[in-house]
């Protein structure tokens, strides 16, 4: 799922400082599940803004709401009436949600309250890890389920590089980063498929990734054309 992290409160206060009626809008899907932008975060953020502005002697009207999925027009349409009452929306959805809101409410100012961080999963409660970069051309079949694009710091396809030491990546600092290719090596070893480690993998087609520009999928089979 999409993992996000709330922006630092100072930044939130700064960006919203010129507005007097603020709607904090959470999203109840991915970012709620990763505990960054659900109803609870929305209420907390709203309360924090309110307290801050009181302290600054600039009271503000702020309301917290959340929507099922901020990236779907039908769901955000439900907020039409509410939108009229506020100058600005602080969206706690991922970047997709923010832009969907802007698309639907072009006359409104929508600010991001979240940094959309990566695609990943919870390793355990409170720990999330990136494991997919949506490159558009999955190689997990070759590496048997460990993504070299994401897990190798240099996205190598013929790893590991010389910076791999005791299973750790050369850029490991305070936070240790596992060497993706070490993991792949260990996994292939366990599966008895080390042969792959000897193959020279040719340059990858990156045009399916973001490097091919913003991507769009069009499926004629599921498109509805009215009047058909």
């Amino acid at each position: 799922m999409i993992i996000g992290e709330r922006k630092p409160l100072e930044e939130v206060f700064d960006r919203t400082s010129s507005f007097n009626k603020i709607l904090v809008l959470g999203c109840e899907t991915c970012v709620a599940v990763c505990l960054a932008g659900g109803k609870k975060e929305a209420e907390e953020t709203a309360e924090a803004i309110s307290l801050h502005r009181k302290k600054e002697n600039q009271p503000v009207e702020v309301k917290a709401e959340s929507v099922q999925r901020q990236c779907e027009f039908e769901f955000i349409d439900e907020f039409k009436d509410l939108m009229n009452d506020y100058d600005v929306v602080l969206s706690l959805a991922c970047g997709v949600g923010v832009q969907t809101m802007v698309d639907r409410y072009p006359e409104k100012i929508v600010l991001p309250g979240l940094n959309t961080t990566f695609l990943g999963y919870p390793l355990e409660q409170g720990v999330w890890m990136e494991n997919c970069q949506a490159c558009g051309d999955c190689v997990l079949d070759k590496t048997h389920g460990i993504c070299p694009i994401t897990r190798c710091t240099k996205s190598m396809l013929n790893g590991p590089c010389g910076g791999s030491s005791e299973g750790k990546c050369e850029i490991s600092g305070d936070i240790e980063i596992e060497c993706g290719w070490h993991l792949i090596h260990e996994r292939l070893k366990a599966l008895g498929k080390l042969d792959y480690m000897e193959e020279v993998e040719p340059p990858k087609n990156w045009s399916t990734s973001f490097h091919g520009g913003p991507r769009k999928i069009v499926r004629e089979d599921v498109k509805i054309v009215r009047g058909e």
Partner: protein
Amino acid sequence: MNAQRKYPPAPEEMTFEPKVLVVGGGASGILSAEKAAELGLSVVLIEKTEELGGKAAQLSFLYQSNLSPSQWLKDKISSLEKNNKVTIYTNSQLEKVNGQVGNFKVTLNIEGKKEEMDIGAIIMATGMDLSSKMPAQVEKGAGSFLSQMEFEKQFTQLASGDSKTFVLVVKEDDFLIGCINALKYSKKLKEANHNVYVFFDEMKVSEEGTEKLYHQVREEGVTFIRGTNNLKIGQEEGKFSLTTIDPQLPVKLAKELVINFDYYIFNEDLLPGADTGKLAEILRVNLGPGGFFQEDNYHTEPVYSNRQGIYFVGACRMPDLLHNVQEQAGAAVNSIYQLSVADVKELMEKTPLIDVIKCAYCLTCYRSCPWNAIDLLYEIEGAAWDGAPYLHPLACQKCGCCVAECPNRAISFPGYTDEDMQKEFKKIGGKV
């Protein structure tokens, strides 16, 4: 919107299956099964080996009792076998547990065949493992060194005949049971006119009557020597000797003490049963110190787990004397009974409620419930994500952790809702 009430089981439909699963057919399991049947609950007793008895079957005699353990077991087992409330499966194991107290869905492996059943509560009585480490490397005469359990088995034979010298060594870091065993053996050996030396670090006499027993055997001529750290075992022509300096004596007086012995009895290391970790995963319960069942938290002692309806009795939580185990069995069964007659409707009024429309099914509550009282259900009517978590009213301990962790604030807690809290905050500074 309190959609929780919509989904099954509704309070009036919720029943408590009056059936207890007892895992483990040793003394603890047998006593638990007996207690549960006494209260009218039906019992399924499973044992992973071929027959019931466990470690108790290997004992020669009991402490402060003239009962023969084998006879005691035989009587208990035959009365259980006759009891129509009790079903016994040997060569059987616990494989899977779903659901919550009152309605656990349990999968058993009965002699290689999988069987599912509805169970109200589970008593774990899986016992412990023993591991013995020889105190010295000897080329010949290893038979002179026996762990307490090996000694138990051969006791009658070894204690008969001419006067022999026994050395009993109880190492410091052990449970009460090692000390009590040493006292138990001393008494019997002395009665059979043997020489007995007990080496110990700390004589644990907290159990009722043990201090008296200690004094009694001491008066009868058993020699107690404190300190087990500098014992040296010597071997000469098939004879063993033990050399030590009494650490309690002042240096000037301290002389080497040499004891020629025939048998050296030492206590085993007590280990959790080999399956304990795996079972804990199946049951979703926390383990305590040393990997035994039961968390180190006084709220759970003596028999409670971090899940309602799952109890630990006997050596699987900590080895204990038979009469204490009996009390534990009683406590567990009592608790089961209390739950079986609880007023679910009333409990439900205090249980946090999940609004399935707001629920993103993110599993945060499921993961953060200290009591593992939350089940995951699917095909819930009205739910945003097809399924939703279910807070079982009997399993829930009303701590509110899930309420606080829910990222969509989909869980409300009667008595502690935002409105309730704000009402309290209204009193700030004396305003009402």
